[in-house]
């Protein structure tokens, strides 16, 4: 079976025949057509396209970075770099005994604060529900925000996390990657911070290049010597 990866754009016929259409493809007659710009992959019985463009679409259990944009007396609204706003209920932060009279929401999270969060629920009818009640989640106190294209997040993580490990090891930075394309970098040394940010931007710009992990490593080493 051919398992060739191909660059495709909307309207390109990837293959014909009895395949199962998966992500970003449609079946028209017996033709399987790409619906987005990306890389097509053919498996034993299914076809899919990995998208190179587009906005973030919330998926349950995704780790994301959100920015508080407003709050009511019962919940916060987060900008999650998507077409929807994230909904963070106050119970999630204050616990079950939250009372709208006694607790002031701004005492925990203010407008403009960044939070690491997880998508608890997301369906077609409502805005995505966000939770910060877990280990490693919650308000982010320090670090720099870097914005990358959400479709390039898997590239930044790399195969089994190789890319991100390479950057972290070379710069001693701590990097939190949100699936929505927002990345928070924090580092003790300013040089490490700058280097890590540069490496992330490099991945964002050259995501289509093969062997990028090695190139990033090389770039980090050269910078380290000077």
């Amino acid at each position, binding site marked *: 079976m051919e398992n*060739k*990866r*191909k*660059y495709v*754009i*909307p*309207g*390109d*016929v990837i293959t014909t025949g009895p395949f199962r259409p998966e992500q*970003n493809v*449609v079946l*028209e007659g017996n*033709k399987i*057509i790409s*619906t*987005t*710009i990306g*890389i097509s992959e053919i498996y034993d019985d299914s076809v899919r396209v990995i*998208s*190179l*463009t*587009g*906005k973030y*679409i919330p998926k349950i259990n995704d780790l994301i970075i959100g920015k508080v944009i407003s709050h009511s007396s019962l919940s916060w609204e987060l900008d999650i770099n998507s*077409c*929807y*706003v994230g909904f963070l209920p106050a119970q999630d932060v204050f616990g079950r005994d939250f009372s709208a009279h006694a607790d002031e929401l701004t005492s925990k999270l203010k407008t403009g604060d960044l939070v690491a969060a997880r998508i608890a629920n997301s369906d*077609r*009818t409502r805005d995505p529900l966000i939770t910060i009640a877990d280990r490693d989640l919650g308000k982010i106190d320090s670090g720099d925000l870097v914005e990358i294209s959400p*479709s390039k997040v898997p590239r930044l993580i790399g195969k089994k996390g190789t890319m991100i490990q390479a950057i972290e090891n070379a710069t001693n930075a701590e990097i939190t990657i949100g699936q929505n394309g927002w990345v928070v970098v924090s580092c003790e040394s300013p040089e490490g911070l700058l280097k890590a940010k540069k490496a992330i931007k490099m991945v964002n710009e050259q995501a*289509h290049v*093969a062997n990028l992990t090695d190139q990033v490593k090389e770039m980090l080493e050269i910078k380290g010597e000077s």
Partner: protein
Amino acid sequence: MGGRESTLVLLDENGIRCDGRKIDEPRRIMIKAGGLKNADGSAYIEFGDNKILVGVFGPRDVHPKHMSNTDTGILRVRYHMEPFSVGERKNPAPSRREIEISKVIKEALMPAVILDKFPRTAVDVFIEVLQADGGTRCAALSAASVALADAGIPMRDLVAACAAGKAADTIILDVNNEEDQAGQADMPIGYMPSLEKITLLQLDGVLSPEEFKKCVNVGVDGCKIVYDLQKKALNEKYFQNGRDQ
């Protein structure tokens, strides 16, 4: 346009048109994907002397809220001509013609885009005609579909558009401004080549049934030329070298 009398020779005895083209030859076309930093997707097209810039935003929140649809995303299109796009200053307020073209382009794009994955959102397409020279709706439609693809909106196919028409009793491809004013018919066609479907078909003028069929075929061939350039523009932006990994 009813075949007005004019001194202009639309087609000479050698089959050469007033701007030096053959009867089945389109104008020079250049399409570039991207270019606007703040838009989610953008495209620029030069179609002969037409110069059109398209920006796409979305999917994003719908304002006003009552326009949103809980089942699917909506598509909104604004076609606008700059005051300096034509010989005499054009009033920048939306004219009757611009409102019609916005609607027609929106309806030509609707069969291509797949918005049911984005309920309660809107995709906004802004088309700015910087310089007009006949056939702007086709050029605008071609550029809009490239900009939508650039924005990552799921699409069944790119919509390519090209006009065909009749001037000096001959069916011609890609009607320019002079031929539109003095010719006998103008037929803009929007076409999805992979699906072999027509999404836009207008006709201004009079054609016999045979001429009509021939005109559609000529127009569709023109759309295929535009389609190759649209694909080239997207390939250039996303995969600089070669199509296969």
